[in-house]
């Protein structure tokens, strides 16, 4: 029973960052119809930025996280401008190939810059965990969870309550009509990709200090984000958020009670099951896209 509660706590904490990763990817797909293979690299980028700012530059931990999120947003905007704007309107396979190319370049640039050695980032949190009855959670993870949830809520507020969000939703529903209504599509696309990338960088910046930072850390993160997004239905915001928690629960319990070696395979098995029985995702109402 004690173990069960601990697993639940771990899953909830992990689910927050998974949801963050999934939401960023699903936004880009839903609005732009782009499968973003650079998502994992933005995640890695966020983690390395925190490392760079905290360890060699000696900046405050929280300031470093804020900075790395901003850098992630800027890198996302740049990628959109350089790679996706010239091929606007191309079919999904073409954009996918371009994004795979970008992914290879970014990953190897990271490997080249930082070498393969894992880096760890010191945190200002106390080593004593938060203890609630029989469950203990480190303060760092509590911070990660709360920030992740805050980011998801903030992005949702932007989409639901701002003019920009309204334009994004309009583009999601019907790009051409949105254009006719005077929505600046280029701006919307850039903003969407920047927000998506910013969320990936946030996840990296938050989890970098929890684990260690390596150039290939983004690969698994990207694949998990894909799994989450498939579960929720491509382009479904809350589907991705809930999908993140589902994946975290499946992994945590699968690793705890079945086999820890297959921990990272759980998500993929889950995708295969979802696609066998509900190909449009768990929460979809519309017909599948594509």
């Amino acid at each position, binding site marked *: 029973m004690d173990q069960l509660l601990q697993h639940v706590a771990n899953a909830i904490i992990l689910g927050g960052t998974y949801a963050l990763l999934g939401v960023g990817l699903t936004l880009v797909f839903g609005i732009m119809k782009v499968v973003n293979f650079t998502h994992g690299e933005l995640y890695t980028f966020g983690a390395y930025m925190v490392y760079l700012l905290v360890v060699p530059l000696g900046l405050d931990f929280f300031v470093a996280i804020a900075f790395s999120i901003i850098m992630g947003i800027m890198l996302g905007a740049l990628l959109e401008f350089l790679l996706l704007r010239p091929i606007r309107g191309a079919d999904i396979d073409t954009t996918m*190939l371009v994004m*795979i*190319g970008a992914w290879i370049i970014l990953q*190897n640039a990271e490997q080249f810059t930082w070498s393969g050695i894992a880096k760890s980032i010191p945190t200002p949190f106390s080593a004593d965990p938060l203890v609630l009855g029989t469950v203990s959670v480190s303060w760092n993870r509590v911070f990660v969870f709360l920030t992740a949830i805050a980011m998801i809520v903030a992005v949702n507020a932007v989409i639901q309550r701002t003019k920009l969000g309204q334009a994004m939703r309009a583009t999601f529903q019907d790009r051409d009509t949105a254009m006719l209504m005077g929505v600046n599509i280029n701006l919307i696309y850039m903003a969407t990709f920047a927000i998506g990338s910013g969320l990936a960088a946030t996840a990296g910046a938050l989890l970098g200090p929890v684990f260690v930072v390596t150039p290939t850390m983004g690969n698994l993160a990207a*694949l998990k984000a894909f799994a989450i997004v498939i579960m929720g239905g491509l382009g479904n915001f809350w589907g991705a958020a809930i999908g993140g928690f589902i994946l975290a629960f499946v992994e945590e319990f699968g690793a705890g009670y079945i086999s820890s070696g297959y921990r*990272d395979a759980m998500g993929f098995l889950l995708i295969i099951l979802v696609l066998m029985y509900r190909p449009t995702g768990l929460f979809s109402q519309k017909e599948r896209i594509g």
Partner: protein
Amino acid sequence: MRWLEWTFLAFLISIPLWVTDQYFIHILITTGIFVIAAMSLNLLLGYTGQLSLGHVAFFGIGAYASALLSLGFDVSLGGGLGIAVDPKPVWLAFLAGIVMAGLAGWFIGKLSFKVRGAYFVIVTISFAEVTRMVALNWIDLTEGPMALSSIPPFAIYIPGLFEETFYKKVPNYYIMLAVGTLSYVAIQRTVGSRFGRAMIALRENEPLAQSVGVPVTRFLLLAAVMSAAIAGAAGGLYAHYIRIVDPDIFLFIYTVTMVIMVITGGKGTLAGPVVGGILFGILPELLRDFAIPEVQWMIYGLLMILIVFFLPQGIVPAVTSLFAGRGTRRQRDAQPGVGGGQPTQSHSE
């Protein structure tokens, strides 16, 4: 185009006669193995228009199955059940590897052709990741990260008469060439047949193809099985030539390599994967002296983006249309498939 194919084959056969550098032969063998894998991917990506990003799974399954059968294995499945297999002759293991890969292609095709586009891509990636995890974690069977080593090489064995084991590079080169030529001819025959035309029809317009009576899912499944089996053959060649197989052969980066080869050479053309494969097989050797692997990969990524931007049909269609521009148009159209005279329109979502 037929004379060009024969000339090229004759040229390939002649190579070991005038090249003595064993390292160069080695590069040709590994390049050839990748060309075969790229050809198999092209069948799906180029002709049916399905971007399968899990292709390395079939390559890996072929390699593991062939290696394991030739080494023999003994695993327990729990509950007193177990499978023990004595070492089998290499050629039998190789064929079994092809069959295993084909079965995997059938299974994953059954599963993933329910969906298209982005969903399909992600399912295929997931499948490859699952196979990698299995190879990594099922240590009783696969040795996990310790790798399967001392895999026997190809051999000819006629009881009482003749026995020859091919440790040397040149025989392996000819084996690769034979498998490659067979795969090429098989793919050529397939895409030139009624079945191939149906595949192209459903790439161009799936609802239309379906409405005129093309059994879309069945044909996709057939293409997937054939593609997987050829990839499995490439995997088997790899296992018995390199003679060591570890879970890293399932890495996504190898699928990406195959995709780059097909896209660069020209998807949906017979010669495309061969041209692209040779280019990207030789390129690393040329770059090796002045670029570390990371920079090499960055160049690959950049090339991929540049090709999609500026030469979206790939090298082969660009070159053929350059030459065909001088000849008559009818000649070019008279040979569908061969050399791919016509630029292929990829389907839009």
